[in-house]
C-alpha cells in the first residue's frame, strides 16, 4: 500500500471537512471526543443487580481511525466481561455499535440534548441473537472536563429494562 500518497488526500479531506459547517451529528461526535481518556467510578443499578451493584468500573474512550471512530471500553473488578462500543458517523447520523457480552451487536443513533450536556442514543437495530436480551439505550452526560456520567439500559428477555448508572471521574 503506498501510504504516503494515500494519507495526504485523507488529511486534506479532513481539513476540508473542518472548514464547512458541521452537522448536528458531527457536533455530537466531537463532543464525545472530549471524553477521550480513562475513567473510573461506581455503578448503581435499577432494579439492583447484586453482581455489579456498587462495584468499581473502569471506562476508557479513545479516538482512533484518524479521528473517524471512538473506541469505548468498559471493565469491572473481578468481572469477565469486556464490552467494546464503537462510535462513528454515518452520513448525518451519529451511530454507536455495541459489541455486547451477550453475543449481539445493537446499533443506536445519537443526538445531543437541547441543553447540549448529554448525547442520547436510541436503539436502531441489532445483529445476532437476542435470546439473552440486548443493550437498548445509552446516554453520555458531560458534567465537567473530569467528570461524566453514563446511563446504559439493558433489555432483559421479556423486555424488562435494567438501568445502570456510571458516575465516572477522569483518571487520565
Amino acid at each position, binding site marked *: *500500500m503506498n*501510504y504516503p500518497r494515500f494519507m495526504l488526500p*485523507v488529511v486534506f479531506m479532513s481539513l476540508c471537512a473542518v472548514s464547512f459547517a458541521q452537522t448536528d451529528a458531527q457536533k455530537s461526535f466531537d463532543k464525545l471526543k472530549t471524553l477521550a481518556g480513562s475513567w473510573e467510578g461506581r455503578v448503581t443499578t435499577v432494579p439492583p443487580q447484586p453482581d455489579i451493584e456498587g462495584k468499581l468500573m473502569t471506562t476508557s474512550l479513545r479516538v482512533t*481511525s484518524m479521528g473517524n471512530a471512538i473506541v469505548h471500553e468498559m471493565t469491572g473488578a473481578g468481572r469477565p466481561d469486556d464490552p467494546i462500543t464503537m462510535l462513528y458517523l454515518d452520513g448525518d447520523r451519529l451511530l454507536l455499535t455495541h459489541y455486547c457480552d451477550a*453475543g449481539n451487536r445493537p446499533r443506536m443513533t445519537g443526538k445531543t440534548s437541547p441543553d447540549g450536556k448529554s448525547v442520547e442514543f436510541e436503539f436502531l437495530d441489532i445483529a445476532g441473537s437476542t435470546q439473552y436480551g440486548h443493550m437498548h439505550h445509552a446516554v453520555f452526560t458531560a458534567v465537567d472536563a473530569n467528570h461524566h456520567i453514563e446511563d446504559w439500559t439493558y433489555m432483559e428477555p421479556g423486555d424488562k429494562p435494567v438501568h445502570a448508572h456510571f458516575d465516572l471521574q477522569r483518571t487520565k
Partner: protein
Amino acid sequence: MKSLRFMLSLVLLSLSTLAFAQTDAQKSFEKLKTLAGTWEGTFDGKTMRVSLRVTSMGNTLMHEMAGDGRPDDPISMFTIDGDHLLLTHYCDAGNQPHMVGTVSPDGKTITFNFVNASNLVSSQMGHMQRATFNFIDDDHHTEKWEFAMSNGKEMGGLLDLKRTK
C-alpha cells in the same frame, strides 16, 4: 445490566455450544482467536504493530494496527452473525466496510471480501475491499489488506508479522 442468572446462562450456553458441531464460520472465528496477542512487522521500511484481542466475553476479536510515525490507527472487529464470519473495518478513510470471511480448503488462509459499507461517500478515496489472513505458525502470520480506490484502481500491502507477546 446482567444478573447472575444471565451470567450462568451464558456459561451454560458456552459449554453447550462446545458440545455441538461448530459451523465453518465458528471454526474460522476460533482460528482467528489464536492470533490474540501483539505482533510486529515492517512495511515500507517502517515498523508496524498489530494487536488482536478477544473481548465481549469471547464474542468479538478486536484488531488494531499502528505504525511508527503514522497518524492512522484503524480498528477492525471480527464477529459471528449466524453462519457468517464478519469483519467491520473502522477505516481511516472515514467509512466502515463490512466483509464476510471464508476459509481456504487447507484451512491456512481466511479471506474477507467486501459486502457493503456505512458512511461510504464519493468524496472519499475509496474503501478497504479485501483482507487476507494467512496462518504460518503460532508466532508468525501475514495479513494482506487491499484498498479499492474510487478511480477503480486497487492498492494493497502485505504485513509479515511476528509475535512479540
